[in-house]
């Protein structure tokens, strides 16, 4: 045997890394964009594109949180109601207690991370299956949101700059031709940051490693429980960001909202090519997945397709995406 190392060609790497699903998702997005632009002249208007992006921001951020957890081989059903809970917490801090905006932001993200920490502890230390642990958290947080808010929306009338968080445009101030809302900017910056974390930091490495073979990681002397808790906490903190975005856009914390968002988030993750079995996935794929969902909903709405049917189409897309992934895997053998 010689010591010459056979270099994997970039093409092979591409095949191996599951990038094909990402490519497929990206191609589907392009096809959708072309289809709707031809079908309706209103579709490609700047204002409509911005509306699509704005609609993606909340689901996109939640999907980023869900991606982290799913790559570890887990699942987080509580992202939607955690988002609502952090929005309510922000409302309590800003409106009930009358504190300044930065405290509201810190409280929402901090509370999100704390709840994620609890989920992570239930899963890693008490060995409760992620599905059950986060199902419990989902209901607990939904209940607590209603209890704390007195079942009524909390309005941010004392914090006039609150809607700016999501709907203002920092980019628009610098480049007037590009009125990108802050919510979208936050989504993109967060996506870049988490993508970097996943690919370049120890936390990211263990995220993939845990989903790939947790026992092997444990036998390598890594504190798997600790890292798992950290990942759930990070995902929780990201849900806090989503809570800020949605309450800012509605200028109120709606305690009854949130249920169902977790499914949209998981759908975006799956469409983006992240494996529910864990070990593989990417933030870029998830963002594309989230965009596909909003483009589809927006386009169908413009074409005056009834909302009921939009939901049906989303379901079909999820099944098609996963089936395409299965086909690819089977071919790869």
């Amino acid at each position, binding site marked *: *045997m*010689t*010591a*010459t*190392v*056979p*270099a*994997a060609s970039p093409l092979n*790497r591409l095949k*191996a*890394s599951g990038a094909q699903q990402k490519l497929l998702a990206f191609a589907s997005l392009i096809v959708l964009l072309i289809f709707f632009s031809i079908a309706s002249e209103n579709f490609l208007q700047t204002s409509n594109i911005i509306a699509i992006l704005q609609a993606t921001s909340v689901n996109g951020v939640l999907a980023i949180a869900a991606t982290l957890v799913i790559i570890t081989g887990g699942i987080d059903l509580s992202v939607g109601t955690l988002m609502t809970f952090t929005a309510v917490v922000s409302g309590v801090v800003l409106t009930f207690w009358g504190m300044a905006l930065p405290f509201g932001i810190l409280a929402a993200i901090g509370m999100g991370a704390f709840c994620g920490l609890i989920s992570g502890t239930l899963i890693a230390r008490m060995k409760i299956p992620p599905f059950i642990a986060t199902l419990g958290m989902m209901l607990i947080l939904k209940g607590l949101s209603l209890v704390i808010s007195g079942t009524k929306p909390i309005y941010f009338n004392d914090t006039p700059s609150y809607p700016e968080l999501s709907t203002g445009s920092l980019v628009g101030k610098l480049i007037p031709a590009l009125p990108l809302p802050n919510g979208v900017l936050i989504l993109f910056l967060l996506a870049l940051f988490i993508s970097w974390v996943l690919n*370049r*930091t*120890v*936390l990211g*490495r263990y995220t*993939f*490693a845990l*989903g*790939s*073979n947790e*026992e*092997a*990681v*444990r*036998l*390598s*002397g*890594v504190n798997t429980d600790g890292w798992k808790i950290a990942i759930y906490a990070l995902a929780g903190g990201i849900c806090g960001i989503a809570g800020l975005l949605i309450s800012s856009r509605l200028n109120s914390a709606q305690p009854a909202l949130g249920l169902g968002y977790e499914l949209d988030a998981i759908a975006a993750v799956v469409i983006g090519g992240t494996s529910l079995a864990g*070990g*593989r996935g990417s933030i870029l794929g998830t963002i594309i997945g989230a965009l596909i969902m909003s483009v589809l909903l927006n386009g169908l709405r413009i074409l005056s397709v009834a909302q009921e049917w939009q939901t049906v189409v989303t379901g079909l897309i999820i099944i098609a995406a996963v089936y395409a992934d299965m086909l690819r895997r089977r071919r790869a053998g």
Partner: protein
Amino acid sequence: MNPVIQMHGIDKRFPGVHALKSVQFDLIAGEVHALMGENGAGKSTLMKILSGIYQPDGGTIRVNGAEVRIAGPRAAQGLGIGIIHQELALMPDLTVAQNIFIGREPKNRFGVLNEGKLNADAAAIFQQMKVAIDPQAEVRTLTIAKQQMVEIAKALSFRSSILIMDEPTAALNDRETDELFAIIRGLRGEGVGVVYISHKMDEIRRISDRVTVMRDGAYVGTVTAADTPIETIINMMVGRDLDQSVVDIPDLSGAEVALRVQGLNRGRVVRDVSFDLKKGEILGFAGLMGAGRTEVARVIFGADKRESGEIEVHGRAAAIRTPQDAVKAGIGYLSEDRKHFGLALGLDVRNNIGLTALDKFSDRAGRVNDSALAKVARDYIESLAIRTPSDKQEVRLLSGGNQQKVVIAKWLLRDCDILIFDEPTRGIDVGAKAEIYRLLVDLAAQGKAIIVISSELPEVLRLSHRIAVMCEGRLTGILPGGPATSQTEIMRLATQRDMASEGALT
């Protein structure tokens, strides 16, 4: 020579099992020390203690003369002890280099990784091992043999002076085994002490310097490999002379041919395989790991697609494309991995036996006649002597031997009269083995046609009326059973490579 490892009086209990009874073991730098014993002898448990996965209940461990407590895998690594587990402990979605340095990634103080250094370090280790593996390849794309090399590289990356290998060749073919041995010899030359756990006698002779034998959780003895006959080691392992009972070969000259296979082909794993199997006959399939025996069985059973070849059952051509077809034709296949393919462990004995024959016990509306099912199940429990408190016992609570009997009952209930047993006694203790053997002989006497695939030559010799030997996908010969055939003769056929095709492949 100073021992690098001295284990003394090691005791370990699990609930209900005294796994290790005051066991001793020592390892010298630069030796390959084989650790042998039957399944359940305690080899893996002892090594898991040495690598910090289990804590001993008693005894002392010295590393380089100093007494140590090995609190966990990390502590073992710190002491220079690396272990390669039987089930490879790799992360298939990560790259080779990422796997090797998991938990010890080169990083700055903010936890940001240095991938360049990671890959370079991995490449350096492979250079040292003289192995060609791309550090950036995803582990899932590598062969099992290459994955094994990654495990070794990982162990070496700790600068391990002690390397434990738990049945490393279980999934390797001959050539891969040779490569592995070359690496082990290289490590030995550099002063690494290697603990080598294996069942394979021929490997022990080839690679090891000393042999320690364990039996039933106890230390039996340590001998030098070069001047100890294999029979002596086997006697140490089983604690008595090998069962000398000779197979009683019935006169089958007038018996009907139950299964005829002609020119079976599937890629490189099954090449032009032809044989006959008569009613009442036990045909043993011998060969080394990867010789294609299981593959032949799977093709006959319809679990894998055949590329060409004919299968005749009771003189009629059988169009077997799926396992359902095979079962309809009366062929049963008892997989070597009972837990995965043979049993629903959480269900009770009754339902496992009836699982694939529920149509016999249900009416048109799909209602199951439980009392009829129970009666049949109890009949099998009695006739096969399945030791279970009742037919309502969950199968996972039975011993390996009794689980195997449940699988047999299941196939008998399907009216299968051609039964293919793949490693029927794997993971079954010595006493239960004899019982399974007796059962197979009885089934043959009742007119069932039986194929037994086994990697244990004594098992093949003891059971088979005829012995088919395979090597590299080809049937290299069919030998008569009984005392006329020796292990040497089987081994000769099992290693009889097809030089022509070998030349064409390399």
